[in-house]
């Protein structure tokens, strides 16, 4: 093996190269003007928002950096440095929003700075930020591998599904919404999680399929390792766009749903750009594109017509009939549920 030699000249060139490379992002940022750092969920959201919203924000004279991060991770990062947030805006559901308000890390918005504010139904005009879509949850299944499940009970009582269903822990909103529904079916109410834990204990084959996140489930679904998982309609749209056999089914007991909102962090450094991003996200131009595959996001802008594919999941009239969990109660119990479930899964 040749000896490694570093001359002073080599070292100088290396140091200069490193300095030049590290300065490049700053130069690019300076050229773009004020740029909003917007946290979005990874995967479909990240791709959709980067593709659709970045040009609209640029038209408004600002830059947009999409930073993929799960809602809980967004909270953790912003709580780690209060007053100096890692993001200008957050994207989250009411469960995390309640935590964010309690911890004083998001601020009320000024609706007069959003041109498209009036295009939203009053239900979507939150004082802490606009609702950009409603995520409708349910069960994703592979029709080539398993029959269409009727609901949660079917997954436990029909042996066809044994070993093919995947679940996640209580850190995931999708999972929590499914478990609260299961607590209603198998227990005395949405917070009777002991009934859900007992259900898993009685069906240990379901514990083998517990993974860390919905993203991991999508990968496993793609590889044919699992055939059923708890999902949003967006997850199924994403799988379908990749040419996979995936179908959505609303559980017979009702489909849980959660609004997804954009929030402005306290101490956000790029306020103008953040407002431009929020305005773009609720604009007709953006939502007309985001309602199409592979994102298929339910539009909250009144002027945007629903596609037949979205109407197959839910219509505007049906929105009121969705199951909206009690996030205050969930947040109160969530830490305990997470610890209990993790211990149960690990055996």
């Amino acid at each position, binding site marked *: *093996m040749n000896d490694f030699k570093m001359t002073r000249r080599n070292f100088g060139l290396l140091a200069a190269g490193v300095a030049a490379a590290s300065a490049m992002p700053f130069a690019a940022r300076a050229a773009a003007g004020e740029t909003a750092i917007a946290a979005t969920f990874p995967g479909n959201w990240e791709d959709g928002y980067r593709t659709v919203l970045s040009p609209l924000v640029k038209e408004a004279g600002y830059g947009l950096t999409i930073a993929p991060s799960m809602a*809980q*991770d967004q*909270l*953790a990062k912003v*709580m*780690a440095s209060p007053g100096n947030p890692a993001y200008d805006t957050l994207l989250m559901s009411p469960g995390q929003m309640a*935590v964010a308000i309690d911890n004083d890390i998001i601020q009320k918005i000024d609706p007069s700075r959003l041109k498209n504010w009036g295009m939203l139904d009053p239900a979507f005009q939150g004082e802490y930020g606009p609702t950009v879509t409603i995520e409708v949850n349910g069960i994703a299944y592979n029709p080539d591998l398993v029959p269409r499940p009727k609901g949660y009970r079917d997954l436990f009582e029909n042996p066809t599904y044994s070993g093919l269903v995947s679940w*996640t*822990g209580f*850190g995931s909103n999708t999972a929590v919404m499914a478990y609260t529904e299961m607590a209603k079916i198998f227990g005395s109410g949405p917070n009777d999680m002991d009934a859900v834990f007992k259900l898993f204990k009685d069906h240990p084959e379901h*514990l*083998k*399929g*517990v*993974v*860390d996140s919905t993203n*991991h489930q999508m*990968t*496993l679904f793609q*590889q*044919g*390792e699992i055939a059923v998982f708890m999902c949003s309609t967006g997850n199924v749209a994403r799988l379908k766009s990749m040419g996979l056999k995936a179908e959505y089914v609303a559980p017979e007991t009702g489909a849980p749903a959660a609004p997804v909102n954009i929030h402005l962090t306290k101490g956000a450094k790029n306020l103008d750009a953040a407002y431009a991003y929020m305005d773009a996200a609720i604009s007709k131009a953006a939502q007309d594109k985001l309602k199409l595959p592979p994102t298929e996001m339910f539009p909250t802008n009144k002027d945007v017509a629903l596609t037949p594919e979205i109407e197959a999941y839910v219509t505007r009239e049906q929105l009121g009939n969705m199951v909206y969990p009690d996030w205050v109660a969930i947040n109160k119990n969530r*830490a305990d549920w*997470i*610890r209990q479930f*993790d*211990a149960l*899964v*690990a*055996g």
Partner: protein
Amino acid sequence: MKAGGFPYVIPMLLLSVAFFATPLAVLVGYSFTGSEGPTLANYGHFFGDAFNFRVLVNTARLGLETVLATTLLGVPIALLYWHSGKTARQVIIFLTLIPMLTSNVVRTFAWIVILGRQGPISEALLGLGLIGRPMSLMFTELGLVMAMCQIDLPLIILPLVAILSRTPVQYTEAAQVSGAGPWRIFVTVLIPLMLPGLLAGWILVFASTSSSFVTQAVIGGARNVYVPQLIYREVGTLFDWPLASAIAVVLLLSTGCLLVAMTMISRHRRLVGHG
């Protein structure tokens, strides 16, 4: 080192204090904080729960299993390198380094395909008639050790190659001439020669495996919980940073103890051939 060389160490020393010792001190300090001031409650909470203790033991076991597996695979490869010509040596180094140019995340996801029901392992076992139906090694400790072994293998091969490339092959020939058999040569000549490289490799592999997050989470699933996932859960999901700090300190101390034990074993007089 000569006494006059100390000024040259100062920049490294300052960097270590600023970017390692200080954050570590903050972490340790944080692990003793509670809502009502300094407390040992975080450590009490960790050790008071049998689940946490089991996770700690599982993490150490995963590290040791991976060290064993990488050693069993890495030593023959390093010896092959030692006995090879120039071109073969370049090929071995290239093949060792090439996986390191790929992201750990990509390598981990590739293992999903390999370990899955329709992967080559399952297909091969089915083809050989050793199993009756497709099997998956996903979410099993065996599957995780296999993936970690492939990911961390360069960490043990490279230090071994560095040591052996400076060692004349004639050492083994001299032992042969003196009448030593292959196993005696391996135990009394090769192991003592390779020991510094093995020690470096063991430390790197153990530290990498026990602190790995992505591979543990994806391949191990939620059933196989290890300390990094526990820390992530406390920070990212439960926002209990003092407890997360306490777990991190416990991980640091427990892995540190194992590494010290490995070092002491490798310096044992009989093992290094001075007994």
